[in-house]
């Protein structure tokens, strides 16, 4: 299947590209990778990256080297909901490891893995700027703060019920652009 943005996404892409001065389209690369990840199942397959290269008239390698540098870009398939748990100092001091353990027990996977049904991935991440409301995790653009194991249970149930793929470039940002 040919990889292509639909009309709405293409409009957003062009709007982003238009922000930069003549000849500096490459600046749109990170925003477009976020958009692509949101549009194409939460990860960046090689044909997707090649497509972004075409849009920006740059070499594919210029896309690969960037996509592989930044931790928010997934180069392999991930679950519909990627639970990114902060494990840095302030969160660690307030129980991040217990939260991770609870998630691992609940979903029967280890951090770094995806559930067999493809619904959840647990990822350990570094400080998310939510240290005052620790422990915390992020799912898509949404921050979940001051977590307790009870709160985690409710959040997972809700995400499970909704069954939707969560992305950073969520509907809020998308509509803001369109």
């Amino acid at each position: 299947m040919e990889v292509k943005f639909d009309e709405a996404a293409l409009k957003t892409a062009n709007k982003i590209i238009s922000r930069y001065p003549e000849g500096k389209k490459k600046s749109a690369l990170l925003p477009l990778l976020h958009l692509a990840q949101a549009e194409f199942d939460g990860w960046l397959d090689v044909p997707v990256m090649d497509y972004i290269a075409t849009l920006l008239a740059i070499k594919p390698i210029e896309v690969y080297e960037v996509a592989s540098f930044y931790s928010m870009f997934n180069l392999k398939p991930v679950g519909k909901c990627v639970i990114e748990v902060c494990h840095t100092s302030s969160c660690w001091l307030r129980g991040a490891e217990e939260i991770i353990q609870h998630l691992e027990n609940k979903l029967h996977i280890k951090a770094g893995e995806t559930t067999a049904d493809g619904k959840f991935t647990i990822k350990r991440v570094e400080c998310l700027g939510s240290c005052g409301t620790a422990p915390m995790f992020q799912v898509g653009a949404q921050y979940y703060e001051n977590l307790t194991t009870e709160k985690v249970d409710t959040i997972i149930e809700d995400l499970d019920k909704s069954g939707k793929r969560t992305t950073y470039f969520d509907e809020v940002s998308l509509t803001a652009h369109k």
Partner: protein
Amino acid sequence: MSTKLLLKNDHVANINKLEVYKQHGGYASAEKAIKTMTSDTLVDEVKKSGLRGRGGAGFPTGMKWSFLAKPAGVPRYLVCNADESEPGTFKDRYLMERHPHLLIEGMICSSFALGANTGFIYIRGEYFYIVPILEKAIEEAKAAGYLGNNILGTDYNLELHVQVGGGAYICGEETALLESLEGKRGNPRMKPPFPAVAGLYGCPTVVNNVETIAAVVPIVAMGGDEYAKIGVGKSTGTKLISASGHINKPGVYEIELGKVSVEEFINSEEYCGGVWKGRKLKAVVAGGSSVPILPTNLILQTADGNPRMMSYESLGEGGFISGTMMGSGGFIVMDETVNIAENLYTFNRFYHHESCGQCSPCREGTGWMEKLTHSIISGHGKPSDIDLLWDLQTKIDGKTICPLGEAAAWPVASAVRHFRADFEKLIH
């Protein structure tokens, strides 16, 4: 009553809306700047204010602005550093989420001072939910004539854009940020040339922290001399402190620099509300993960026995032997139950993960430090490992293109210097 400049309207509902922001005096500074001041007079006011960069290094903002090259016919850029990734720091997030117009107004005043017609707010990708908040504020400001062409009927034009990052602490370093904004990997550049001469797209550029840019708004309103009267000595004005860890009231607090002691900051109800669970204080990282960690006796008092105050100078007193730094104002408190070697492991893991990989001492050294601390905290350490850890950090400090090397070395050095017993406890 303490002086509040940035968070004075924190209690006001809907202050994120232009109309409400204006009712509380918003955009008066932008009007004053654009209608009654010139670039030069504005830069002078900021110089007089004594404002120092709030991103970590504390460099005088007015001086930085005066270094900006102004070759004819070449665009100049203002880039707001909203990458905020230093562990323990979350004040820029607070400011942008609740007071987006304060940042936009600060961007307008600062861009005008620099003669920039385009500005970017580079925000860490994880803060994606804040992007629409900022874009909405930009849209409102544009509709009200504070942005776009012929601002307030003058011939000044300004466009602002929000750029999202991709998750990389290194992109907070200003030249890595510019690389990233150009759509590349976040590898810091060699300096010189400094961004003031060759920054974004090779054009003269100023990079400032969110809080620094927001502080320009009250400076324009009250004048540089008045602002300089707030605070103590070279620590002028107010500073946002992100307080976290083992305290009763974590959060973002605005303090008048030099007027609040560390002890008061930790214990008073106005700020942290004391160490949690009635426990004793063990250690504080006062300015974000990179700055030296200090034990209770040295964070509450200087080596000379004076109370330590929340200011650049007082926190720095004693150098790295007995002092620390203001840094980004990320204030992490640890109670008596914490083993500092275990906390250090989280920092070492962080810096290893975030090293961009350009310089061998940082790329390899951070990995070795992570492994070594991991081995110590898992009970596999040898007595000689503590000195090895010390030795390792000396071989990174000062030997890299950008200061991430130092940022990784200092937490190790200070933990070994002040908390050697905690390492020994874990080594059998």
